[in-house]
């Protein structure tokens, strides 16, 4: 769609106008790093951020959410949660935009998940173009997520003193018209944009030793690799990797009841396949007993299972899990090791 120009000095006004109508979430400085938080003061928004510990997923799939409230007094009455709050996620990187597209697919395939979808449909995404890698752990270029051509409502590219605003959806267009002061891009602006995009590309390294389209078949051939056992010996089963991942969506469901034992809530909360109890059934049988099997499950999901089920890769190359892992288990390391093994065995 068409390209607009938003002057940097007009950003504050844009945000100020949005705040009364929307819950606006965006990256802010926190504890020496960045985190997606609800923005209360436009000055807090840090569009020039690197990465965050938790992905913006938490605004679409909260770490803990109420599925319904109940009152047990007379045989049971339930009340669904209040409707979702109109939200704008401001400043998403393109890896996270890809991740949200996967989540959209997961939660609308088969049975549509009403809670997710309600929240998603009340949410607009304003993404930003990354101009240099977050840090050494990013491998977005290898995963094909260094840019996004859909999945956002508005997309900003930093041109120095202004942002080029790409309109992704009709909703994005309306938002811009209603809340922001922009001008149409001039040929000059377009030239600048081309330069910026052209310059950024070489700044990002390819970090996989092979093309990502080979990843599923690579994983297909390495189900029995000894690497999984090595990972199992190292892995602390701390679940940091899955908890910080923008594409992980597994959850636990439990009831929280008040002391009167009558009122309460059924709650869903993030869960992780790396934890002992995840695949354990009553009586104690665990279908993925070893850390090795759980690590294999994780990486198979990222590069194969989710793709097979939903047509999207389960990893967007954001590098969050690599940053979070204390024992240096990383997708790039694992995928390249598997690739090397096949090479050595002459199976490629």
């Amino acid at each position, binding site marked *: 769609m068409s390209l607009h120009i938003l002057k940097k000095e007009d950003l504050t006004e844009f945000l100020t106008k949005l705040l009364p109508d*929307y819950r606006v979430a965006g990256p802010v400085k926190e504890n020496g790093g960045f985190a997606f938080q609800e923005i209360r003061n436009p000055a807090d928004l840090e569009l020039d951020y690197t990465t965050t510990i938790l992905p913006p997923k938490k605004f679409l799939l909260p770490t803990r959410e109420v*599925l*319904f409230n*109940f009152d*047990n007094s007379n045989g*049971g009455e*339930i009340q*669904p949660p209040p409707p979702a709050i*109109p939200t*704008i996620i401001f400043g998403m990187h393109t890896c996270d935009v890809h991740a949200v597209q996967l989540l*959209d697919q*997961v*939660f*609308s*395939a*088969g*049975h*549509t*998940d*009403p*809670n997710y*979808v*309600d929240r*998603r*449909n009340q*949410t*607009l995404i304003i993404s930003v173009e990354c101009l240099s890698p977050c840090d050494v752990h990013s491998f977005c270029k290898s995963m094909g997520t260094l840019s996004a051509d859909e999945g956002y409502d508005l997309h900003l590219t930093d041109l120095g003193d202004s942002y080029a605003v790409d309109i992704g*959806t*009709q909703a994005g267009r*309306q938002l811009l018209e*209603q809340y922001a002061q922009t001008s149409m891009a001039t040929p000059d602006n377009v030239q600048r944009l081309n330069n910026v995009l052209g310059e950024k590309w070489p700044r990002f390294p390819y970090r996989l030793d092979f093309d990502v389209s080979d990843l599923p078949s690579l994983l297909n051939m390495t*189900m029995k690799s000894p690497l999984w056992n090595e990972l199992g010996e190292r892995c602390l089963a701390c679940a940091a990797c899955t908890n910080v991942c923008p594409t992980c*969506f*597994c*959850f*636990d*469901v*439990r*009831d929280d*009841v008040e002391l009167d034992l*009558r009122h*309460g809530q*059924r709650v*869903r909360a993030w*869960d992780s*396949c790396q934890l002992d109890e*995840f*695949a*354990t*059934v*009553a009586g104690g*049988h665990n*279908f*993925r007993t070893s850390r090795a*099997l759980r690590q294999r*499950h994780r990486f*198979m999901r990222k590069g*194969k*299972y989710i793709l097979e*089920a939903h047509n999207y890769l389960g990893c967007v190359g954001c590098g969050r899990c690599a940053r979070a892992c204390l024992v240096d288990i990383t997708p790039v390391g694992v995928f390249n090791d598997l690739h090397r093994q096949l090479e050595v065995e002459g199976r490629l």
Partner: protein
Amino acid sequence: MIIAASHPTVAEPTLDERQLYLPNFVRILDIKPLTELEKVFTFELPNGRPLGHRPGQFVEVSVLGVGEAPISISSSPSRSSKSFELCVRRVGDVTSALHSLKPGDRVGIRGPFGRGFPFEKFRGKDLLFAPGGLGLAPLRSLINQVIDERAMFGRVVILYGARNPGELLFKDELKRWDEMEDVELYLTVDRGDDSWTGNTGVITTLFRNISVYPRNTVAATCGPPIMYRFVMMELFGKGISEGNIWLSLERRMKCGVGKCGHCQINNVYACQSGPVFSYKEIKGLEEAL
């Protein structure tokens, strides 16, 4: 005007899907203890609407405040359209809470979920049922439906094993099946007691007693995780083809609708694609058996 809402990004849920996580309440009509650990619950369907299940499907049962658990529907759809039955073993929080309920109490139900047994494919075949322990609960639904349409099937052979005589489920029904001319029932227990005169040994020992016509036989089995490998070997030994062996698999489940990830077997969600699978479908899955 809030712009987001007027431009949905993802297709809106249907009315039914809006209820996805919200249980419906059903009243307990009757509770029958079967053994020390198992009870059969009969539930009355609200406004007489049939549950509409297939044998092999399950429901998520809620005791509000305690939680939810997946339980197979144990009654046959051919028997009653006003009620259904669940056979529940007391093992943890939700199942213990269920056991403490009385007739007249209400519980929440979601479902039925999952893919049941492909009943149509069984027509005209010889049927071999091999439940172990609590595995009889889901198979009972199928067996009774077969019995109700007995003429549509060839031989009906049931091989049922439990750990000891006290743990045999549905003893009345077993007796009825045993008395039927056209049903062949063989029982075994791992360890007998003074009163036990039947076969002792694990379920696989029963296979020795029977011969089947492999090309026309369909087998259905359900039991504790360790049982499958051994039963499978017996079935292969009888020459039954992979596509004709049907298993109902147990996994941890939270949502029952293919989202929560707990029941995943490699790339397959057991709650959606299963819990009933043919061996052919799962033999490529590393983590299935």
